[in-house]
């Protein structure tokens, strides 16, 4: 096993720690982007921003699980 393949394997394993289903990961990243860019700008009380982030993440999880189970 040469150095390049060791590094490639290590990077692939590292990637695999966080990403398994690509669409699910994209959904989570979009939720985080909404949390960063949109939630602070819309008219909801600041104390509810965290709860709003949780709700959109929960919807992404439920949709992905439903779709994965149907495949």
């Amino acid at each position, binding site marked *: 096993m040469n150095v390049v393949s060791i590094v490639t394997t290590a990077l692939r*394993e590292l990637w695999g720690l966080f990403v398994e289903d690509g669409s699910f990961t994209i959904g989570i990243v979009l939720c985080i982007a909404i*949390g960063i860019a949109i939630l602070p700008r819309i008219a909801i009380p600041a104390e509810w921003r965290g709860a709003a982030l949780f709700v959109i*993440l929960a919807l992404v*999880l439920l949709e992905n*699980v439903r779709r*994965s*189970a*149907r495949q």
Partner: protein
Amino acid sequence: MNWTHAGTAFIAAFLASVVEFVEAFTIVLAVGTTRGWRSALIGTAAGVALLALLVIAFGPALQKIPLTTLQLVVGILLLLFGMRWLRKAILRSAGVIALHDETAIFERERATLEHDALARSRIDWVAFVASFKAVTLEGLEVVFIVIATGVGGMLFPAAFGAIVAGALVIVAAVALRAPLARVPENTLKFAVGVLLSAFGVFWIGEGLRFPWLGEDLALVALVAAFLIVSWLAVIIARSAARQRLPVTNGSAGGGAA
């Protein structure tokens, strides 16, 4: 010390570490019984040494990052990591993908190693690499979880949780001298996925300076909320799986984690 945070960090690190230690131990046990303990243990020690080196090298650097930036970055990584575990545990609970079977993994690893029978030198490199890889990869997850759940001055309870988990698995494994097949791994993964996802949302909120209702108690509320959503997700997945045509198992991205 904030006991809500400390307790949650300890439990999350403990449960996640039990899962990872059991997975690493299964491989090391298969290597040791098949190819001999000397090379298996040298590979294990080398893996532990590499992990210690990584912690020593990168640990102090984390102290220099501003806390809110660290909370945001760690929160994002925890959320990706935790929700990946949670999704898989939900699909396993719903019977959509197969449960993780330590006995089957042990037998498969042993068969591979026996098939690959090389002349034994002083160090059996096949055994060394297999043990080293298992310990490094599973250990990397433990290190990540301890650092991530320990953000904000909770490194000690998180590290203590991982140490207790490691000791418990080693004692149980030495006593049983067999793969720890009776560990309810999916239940643990379910609990860990819920805890890490809750931590992830909480740290992202802290990193973005969102004020939380109930302040630190919001973490407990997030754990409860993720638990309810996950329970709902299992019901939805079961219902959706019943509606599909019968297909081969593992079609929903069900590799070992």
